[in-house]
């Protein structure tokens, strides 16, 4: 490995994510000058936060490209080449759980929910429900790649169930459950779990990576939607202390 290799491609990402940050600053500048008129110190703290977020996102994404993506492909190909390809299913379960808990935006969501519900719904409840549900659905997704189950067989009943639950679940949970669906699958999941299925679909005979490798993210999206709505049924039966705020 050449000394500059770890930083290859960093410039491209830096440019890609610069535009939305610039846009945020422009929007804020307009609002600040016309309406908000916040103190100088407030603005400086905000800008410092944006700078941290930018640098952090840059390092995070670049790290994923050079670290998790190639490793995910290696793992997928290794297990896809085994005689017992079913081992991909438990591996999908374990990695699905670990990677979801590590996704930064999942943490942002859990904390926002705790804050918005004034502590009624605790952040860890969301975090671990999501982790467990994603693990189960990642295992299901791996099973689909291994055994060649057609995607519509999973997705159409899956979304059907999500829609039915919509009418029974607590309305405070419904919005959050649908939000969590796509939030649970971030860049870490994409880079890692998706490279694994594509690697596996490439290695397993009779599987087409374009058909059997894609679709896993969509399956995982169902996990939070279904599981959080189910959790809300549990909350309805036995509300935690602190009183209900259904309204």
């Amino acid at each position, binding site marked *: 490995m050449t000394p500059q290799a770890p930083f290859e491609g960093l410039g491209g990402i830096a440019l890609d*994510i610069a535009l939305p940050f610039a846009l945020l600053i422009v929007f804020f500048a307009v*609002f600040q000058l016309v309406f908000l008129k916040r103190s100088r110190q407030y603005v400086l703290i905000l800008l410092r936060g944006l700078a941290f977020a930018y640098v*952090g996102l840059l390092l995070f994404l670049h790290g994923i490209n050079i670290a998790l993506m190639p490793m995910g492909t290696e793992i997928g190909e290794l297990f896809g080449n085994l005689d017992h390809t079913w081992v991909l299913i438990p591996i999908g379960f374990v990695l699905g759980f670990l990677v979801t808990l590590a996704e930064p935006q999942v943490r942002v969501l859990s904390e926002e929910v705790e804050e918005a519900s004034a502590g009624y719904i605790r952040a860890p409840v969301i975090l671990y429900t999501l982790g467990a549900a994603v693990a189960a659905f990642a295992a299901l997704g791996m099973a689909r790649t291994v055994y060649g189950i057609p995607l519509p067989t999973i997705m159409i009943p899956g979304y059907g169930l999500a829609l039915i639950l919509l009418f029974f679940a607590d309305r405070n949970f*419904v919005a959050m459950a649908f*939000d969590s669906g796509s939030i649970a699958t971030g860049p870490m999941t*994409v880079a890692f779990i998706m490279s694994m299925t*594509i690697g596996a679909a490439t290695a397993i005979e009779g599987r087409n990576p374009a058909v059997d490798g*894609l*679709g896993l993210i969509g399956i995982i999206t169902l996990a939070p939607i279904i599981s959080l709505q189910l959790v809300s049924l549990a909350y309805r039966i036995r509300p935690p202390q602190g009183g209900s705020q259904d309204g």
Partner: protein
Amino acid sequence: MLKIIRDITLEVLKAFLPVVLAIVVLQFTVLYAPPEIFLRFLIGSGMVFVGIVCFLFGVRTGILPLGRDIGAELPQHGSVPLIITAVFIFGFVVTAAEPGVMVLAEMAGEANTDATTALVFVVAGGMAVLLTAAILRILIGFPTRHLLAVVYLIVIVLAVFTPPEFMAIAFDAGGVSAGPLTVPVFLALGLGFVSVLTQRSALSDGFGLIGLAVAGPIIGVLLWGVFFL
């Protein structure tokens, strides 16, 4: 500031270390990936760790308050056309820049740059349209549940008629378009927006923005599959 950073560091360490350890165990038991790939993995993991810590600190002190400020000002001063324009542009640009979207478009476009660019446009455009609809929903006070039901019913119906390859890309696109960039920005925008409207609950009105918005990319790609193939 130091206390916040220390808390975040500990929390991320607890979350990210297990992933790294799991890979290290695999590496030395069954995987035996080439040493340069493993070395890059270790260096990259260090970057990911430092990156998440900086990012979460920045989200808490910068992006969330900023999004709330803008979200809270929009309904007070903006006319409806202005709100629509602002939210649409915002939704399009932030989604197009969301890193997962580009990764997926490249994987699905199979090295065809036209297909890749077209996919990014469909995804960002779909997201922007539904995000705008979701904000209008808050203004009008139409129940989230009903809008979700209508939108996802459309998804199911389209999914029946679209070729399976497009279906995979469509649902994956929905999943990746809510990532570390779009989530804090749109979540804060929605919660700020709701905070200044009376008789709206943060839980049932402030959330739901992202769940509705991601149906945009799904519907966009499914329609593409139904009509152009």
